[in-house]
């Protein structure tokens, strides 16, 4: 037995530098570094948002959530109504990632109101690996929170991505090297996409099942809000009616979220048309964003004003 344990210990000592060395060599070969288990998502828009958020302070409204948030709430429209806002949405952001972003920024930004855009896709997601890799790739979180999230999500893809960034920091592309002609970052966190139109297809049916990790994260978010006496409410942003009807238990999702706070559902809105106001099955195009935001303000401005007082 002693020999066996000694052998394993020796192997581990041998393995670690071998693995790191091979990892570095592998990362140098462009075709090899994009393995299925490294997800380095350096996006210009996300990167610019993560830089801007470092300097944001004392605002009226902080929008937070997934791409439905950063592609849905146009800060320019809200600013024109006199609100000072910032959009901290990131791709596929699940409650686990929202929790870490709030831990990092809530006390620093000190918003008067948080509007949390939430949908059944993110609450059904197991641990939000996609979103976590984006936060890591674009330096949203500080070292300790990064590590905490790494262990909470506990996914091979995330560990590899973290290691990849850690070992290749100097060689990674800078913001100005990444060009995306289809979308534009708007100061304040919103991303405007070139006008395009949704082409109808039949999406898969989804049953909202509250993932237990996401449920735990939502409870923790509620505690964070309560501890800092933060005013907030939830929004279920509009998605195409075609997609909305494939979610078979929307009522269940709505009632689950209402356990945590007020929720406003902007689906089944008569003013938004699948073919005219969306560019894919869940995201609004700029025409849709304007209608949605004005509708949002028309409906919720009195409530927002009372919360901002």
């Amino acid at each position, binding site marked *: *037995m002693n*020999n*066996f344990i000694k*052998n394993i210990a020796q*192997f581990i000592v*041998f*393995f670690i530098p*071998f*693995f790191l060395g*091979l*990892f570095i060599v*592998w990362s140098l070969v462009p*075709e*090899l570094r994009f*393995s*299925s*288990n*490294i997800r380095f998502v350096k996006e210009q828009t996300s990167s610019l948002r993560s830089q801007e958020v470092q300097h944001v302070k004392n605002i009226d409204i902080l929008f937070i959530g997934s791409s439905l948030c950063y592609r849905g709430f146009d800060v320019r429209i809200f600013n024109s109504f006199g609100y000072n806002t910032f959009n901290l949405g990131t791709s596929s952001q699940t409650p686990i990632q929202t929790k870490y972003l709030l831990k990092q920024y809530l006390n620093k930004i000190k918003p008067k109101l948080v509007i949390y855009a939430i949908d059944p896709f993110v609450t059904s997601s197991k641990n939000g690996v996609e979103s976590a890799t984006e936060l890591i790739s674009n330096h949203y979180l500080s070292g300790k929170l990064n590590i905490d999230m790494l262990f909470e999500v*506990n*996914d*091979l*893809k995330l560990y*590899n991505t973290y290691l990849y960034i850690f070992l290749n920091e100097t060689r990674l592309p800078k913001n100005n090297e990444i060009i995306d002609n289809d979308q534009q970052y708007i100061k304040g966190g919103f991303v405007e996409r070139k006008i395009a139109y949704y082409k109808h297809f039949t999406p898969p049916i989804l049953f909202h099942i509250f993932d237990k990790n996401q449920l735990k994260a939502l409870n923790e978010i509620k505690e964070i809000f309560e501890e800092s006496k933060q005013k907030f409410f939830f929004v279920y942003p509009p998605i195409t009616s075609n997609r909305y009807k494939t979610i078979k238990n929307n009522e269940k999702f709505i009632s689950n979220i209402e356990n945590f706070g007020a929720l406003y559902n902007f689906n089944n809105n008569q003013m938004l048309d699948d073919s005219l106001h969306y560019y894919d099955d869940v995201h609004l195009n700029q025409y849709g964003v304007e209608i949605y935001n004005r509708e949002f303000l028309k409906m919720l401005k009195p409530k927002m004003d009372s919360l901002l007082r």
Partner: protein
Amino acid sequence: MLFNSTNFALFLPIVFIGYWFLFNKHLKIQNSFLLLSSYFFYSCWDWRFVFLLLFSTLLDYYAGLKIAASTNQMNKKIWLWASVCINVGFLAFFKYFNFFIESFTDLLLLFGIHTNIWMLNIILPIGISFYTFHGLSYIIDIYYNRINPEKSFVTYALFVSFFPLLVAGPIERATHLLPQIKQSRIFNSIYATDGLRQMLWGFFKKLVIADNCGLLVDNIFKNYESLPGSTIFLGGLLFYFQIYCDFSGYSDIAIGVARLFGIQLMQNFRFPLFATSFEDNWRRWHISLSSWLRDYIYIPLGGGRNGLFLKIRNILIVFFISGLWHGPKWTFIIWGILNAVLLIIETLMKQSKSIVMPTHIKRKALIPDFRALIQMVTVFMVVGSTYFFFRSDSLAQSISMYKTIFSKTFFAIPRGAGLSNWIYITLITFFVIIEWVGKDNKHALETLFDSYAKPIRWSFYSFIIFLIALYGIGDGIKFIYFQF
């Protein structure tokens, strides 16, 4: 608890330490600890089914004692049939109830009779097909006086529920496993190290090859209506790789884990990719099930002893049962029968002396001779193409896929579904080379590089771990055979 999960990575060392360091003084205590750990392992799926496992174990344990104690043949027979009927009854209820009801209503519909029979929402207890077959072989062996009944309940229960083999085999025999459980084990470092090597190769096969092939296969089977015949044909072959690596990967991990506890499980796969005939394929594929069916069904039916006609009948029966064992779907049954037909054709060819019969691959051969290579490729392609039935959701889908394969589009360049990713091709090639080099051993890594210095050996193992870390699918994808 999946082998490819964090929970198992914690569970295994804890049980290992408890087994060798804390409870190693008395065999009974050591076995009891292993039994409790196995039940804990099983309860992680669904604790309610622990009672079913316990009931099935108690039933066979008691029936075994009663059969051995009975002085007249009639009593022996009653206990045997009671045990067989209850075991098979549970299996039939949990696995086949809805299938039989559905098939029956479909049959009535053929005669214009409309019925509205209720179906039940039944959850399949994981591993039921495996532990039922364990129990059945034990009871039948006692009945035919091949073994004596086990007096210790803990020993018998551990034979049935030893955690590495509980949910997906290998289907062990009492004659092989019980004696090992009954005698005290001494830790063997060489043995355990080889167990780790086998586990490593199992993880590579499952996480890197099977799960990656699975992504391509899912794509192809989902979009088969819009893909050319060549892509669909490749999809079938990729599924063959997937199911082989998934299941043999599981078996390798199970056997490797068992070796850490000083227990030798039977070999379940013997490099079936290199089979040179259909018969050879079945001697190499899921050996524990094939040999179980051979010993408890094919031979009792008369095997090949009573003429060609009865031999053909027996082959058809065995493969029908094999198909049905895999699941309550007509696609599995057709897959079984199709393989029986291939075997029957080969049997008939053997009768004709003018046909050149399969050769065997020479041991230690670095490159196969041309004839063996042609035979291997033929068997691989033909057997692989039967797996369309195995993987399809319905008979209609399989037939539609075959129709596309036998169309002009078979000659089109395969496209779509991520087939152009050369990483997949490289990984599969690497896997086939290692399997070929290690084909004369119990598992591919058993003697690979063993004549080289430690740093070279360890570099190779580290490289495999590296590939798993970078290309393995770490989403805890279930093993395909868990559904059986």
